[in-house]
């Protein structure tokens, strides 16, 4: 009986007059490989934006992500938000990223809820909209991101790291940002638990700044660390990587520390906004490990953190 049905299906498909790919797809194929972003090689989600603008074929209904400032300076008390965020009704394609919760005991539903809540807050505070965060047993976190919401590198930075933040006194050590560091090897000045407020600001022509207001304990520690240490450096460490190595120009006595990034430093306002999001949400209760896609999955896996 199945054989008869199967043959009927084959015949039905064979006799169906299916259309050929429209000319617009051939044009799109040419343009995918022509766009400057695609030529620079892989992983740039702005290729989608270039495609839509160049071909005017796909109605994505979402705004592009703007890297850097495209409008007036943002409100200094809140991190910069995306220039145009996709609304749920405008989603045309979602990519799922999955993470394993790393714990030294069985992960409970309450644990997963805590991680999800923390990640949602982190994304929200970083100004990222339209990304769904959920969980599934056993011990997995899933993140559904519209292709236009954020690129895999940014996702990896925002979601993949635990968010353990500490500022240490480097003294005269010659270290540079991007380096791995064992924060326990240097005296800790303050960590995220001492921060009462974190903000990102940006001024035209000056790059982005990170402003941290410390509570009484942190403020006292900062005063003590900076007095008599002019000319030495502090290390701003996030998940074991030096985010910044600012030099101490004067003692800080009021508990307010501002780290300014020049345009030559390679730290964008988006980077700072992400750090603010991470700081406001606090560190995750558990570390996360990306789950690679299966053999049938295309490359939607965020790259490993450096």
């Amino acid at each position, binding site marked *: *009986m199945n054989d008869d*049905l*199967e043959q*009927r*299906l*084959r015949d*039905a*498909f064979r006799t*169906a*007059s*299916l*259309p*050929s*790919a429209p000319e*617009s*797809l*051939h044009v*799109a*194929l040419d343009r*995918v*490989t022509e766009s400057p972003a*695609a*030529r*620079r*090689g*892989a*992983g740039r989600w702005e*290729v*989608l934006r270039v*495609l839509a603008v160049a071909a005017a*074929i*796909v109605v994505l209904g979402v705004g592009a992500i703007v890297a850097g400032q495209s409008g007036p300076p943002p409100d200094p008390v809140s991190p910069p938000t995306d220039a145009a965020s996709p609304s749920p009704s405008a*989603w*045309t*394609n979602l990519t799922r990223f999955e993470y394993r919760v790393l714990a030294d005991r069985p992960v409970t539903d309450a644990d997963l809820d805590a991680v999800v809540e923390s990640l949602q807050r982190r994304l929200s505070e970083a100004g990222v909209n339209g990304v769904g965060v959920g969980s599934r047993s056993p011990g997995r976190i899933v993140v559904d991101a519209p292709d236009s919401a954020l690129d895999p590198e940014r996702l990896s930075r925002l979601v993949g790291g635990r968010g353990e933040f500490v500022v240490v006194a480097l003294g005269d050590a010659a*270290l*540079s*940002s991007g380096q791995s560091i064992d924060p326990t090897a240097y005296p800790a000045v303050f960590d995220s638990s001492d921060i009462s407020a974190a903000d990102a600001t940006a001024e035209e022509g000056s790059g982005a*700044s990170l*402003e941290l207001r410390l509570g009484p304990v942190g403020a006292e520690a900062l005063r003590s660390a900076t007095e008599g240490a002019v000319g030495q450096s502090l290390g701003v460490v996030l998940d074991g990587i030096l985010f*910044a*190595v600012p030099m*101490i*120009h*004067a003692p800080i006595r009021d508990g*307010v*520390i*501002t*780290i*300014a990034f*020049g345009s*030559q*430093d*390679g*730290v964008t306002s988006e980077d700072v906004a992400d750090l603010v999001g991470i700081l406001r949400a606090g560190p995750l209760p558990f570390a996360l490990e990306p789950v690679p896609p299966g053999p*049938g*999955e*295309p*490359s*939607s896996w965020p790259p490993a953190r450096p």
Partner: protein
Amino acid sequence: MRTFALPMDDSRAAVREPDAGASPRSAFLAAARPQLDRAYRLAGLLLGDAHEAEDAVQDSLVVAWQSFASLRDPKRFGPWFDRILVNRCRDRLRRRRIVRFVPIEGEDHAIERDPFRSIVERDALLAGLDGLTPDERLVVVLRFWGDLRLEDIANRAGWPLGTVKSRLHRALARLRASLDGDRKEERR
């Protein structure tokens, strides 16, 4: 506001080198262009909508170009691209709400028919595709239109072979039930 630091140390900005030349592009175009018709038809049969099919193929082309360097054997481009496209279509099927335009009887509307919708609606058996789950529809299309072996379907979808078999079995049962239901209607 107290500025705390300048000058900073070396930049963290990643430097991306441009591609070596046109060779990867030529290889990609040569591999992808012959696949376009097939890909569009596959997406159209899976999604039942020409516009969505075009979007899905376009998205897949972008992903494929971005990860082209990871394809070790260019001769395997077809199955490799199929996997990308199938996943894109499955995601769309799982997430969309289907709004079907129902013509009002007695009114003379000039309705622009979607070619893939028309195909499905014109044939009683293919109309049953709308009653399948996204994964069941995928198996049926790949098996009976794509003429793939079950092992190849498993490879495209990233499923175990047993899963492919059970989904195919359920899909055929549903299609048969759908046909039987139609026959009962005709007899009345």
